[in-house]
């Protein structure tokens, strides 16, 4: 199962705060700029980012957000990241970029590697010589520190 498929499949359960079924355009009006911001963080090339943005909101996977157990925002975040990472992988397959070698294991750095650079938690753990559970814990620490700011 790839990241896009994972993005479309949430856990089974009741929707937590889902008001109604939204169309692609309604979701775009609500979360388009947030999704574009996320895509640009992963893929700074503006034209490519716009193509990915269109593909996110034209994707049939977006309709699965209607049955997603969390909010549309969470679903859009997942989908935007998955599509942008997929496009970035295609791009880096053509022109590989330098490896991340800073060895910084701060929550911010781990979040950047996993979310913005598109590495899986296992890959991040391997790069930084730490366990996967430490990587996941760093995500918690990252958002905890954000909440406390």
């Amino acid at each position, binding site marked *: *199962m790839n*990241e896009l498929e*994972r*993005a479309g*499949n*949430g*856990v*089974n*359960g009741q929707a*937590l*705060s889902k008001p109604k079924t939204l*169309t*692609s*355009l309604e979701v*775009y*009006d609500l979360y*388009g*700029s*947030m999704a*574009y*911001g*996320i895509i*640009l*963080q992963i893929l700074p090339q503006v034209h490519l980012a*716009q193509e990915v*943005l*269109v593909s996110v*909101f*034209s994707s049939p996977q977006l309709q699965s957000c209607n049955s997603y*157990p*969390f*909010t549309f*925002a*969470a679903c859009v*975040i*997942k*989908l935007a*990241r*998955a599509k942008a990472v997929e496009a970035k992988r295609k791009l880096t397959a053509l022109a590989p970029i330098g490896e991340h070698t800073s060895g910084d294991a701060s929550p911010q750095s781990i979040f950047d590697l*996993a*979310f913005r650079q598109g590495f*899986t*938690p296992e890959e991040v753990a391997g790069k930084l010589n730490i366990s996967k*559970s430490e*990587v*996941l*814990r*760093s*995500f*918690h*620490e*990252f*958002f905890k520190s*954000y*909440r406390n700011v």
Partner: protein
Amino acid sequence: MSKQEFIESGILESHLMGLTSEEEQEQVAEMMLSDRELSEYVTELEDDIKRYFAEGAVAPPEAVREIILLRSIREKKGRSSYDSGQTTDTAQYLNVEVNDTHMKVHKLWRPAFIAVFVLSKIFLIAGLYFYFKSVAQQEEIEKIKTEMQLNGK
């Protein structure tokens, strides 16, 4: 794993960002179904994550919205014609206003136009040739007539 340990493990954050495996997704589902407080915590966490990413929001160009709108209309039309099992002529196409002065014709018109052009040139040259020839003959006849009149005198 206790609830607090589960929260601090970071699985929930990873799950909301699409970084969890299937096994971890199932674990999250089980924990959320069994614990209402955890569900409430996830809702708060979602708000935090949404707020974090909303801070980095960038307004996309208006053209992107237009493209998404066109695609959703096309999809809707495609879906409705598929659902009804009818394929009417109007359902297959988008009504697009074309501001173009060009027209398309069958490709056989090209050799036909070339043949008409070549024939017109041949007739024009032939016409000019016979015109000048007749003028020259006319002059020759006039000249002979004049000579004959002079000889008769």
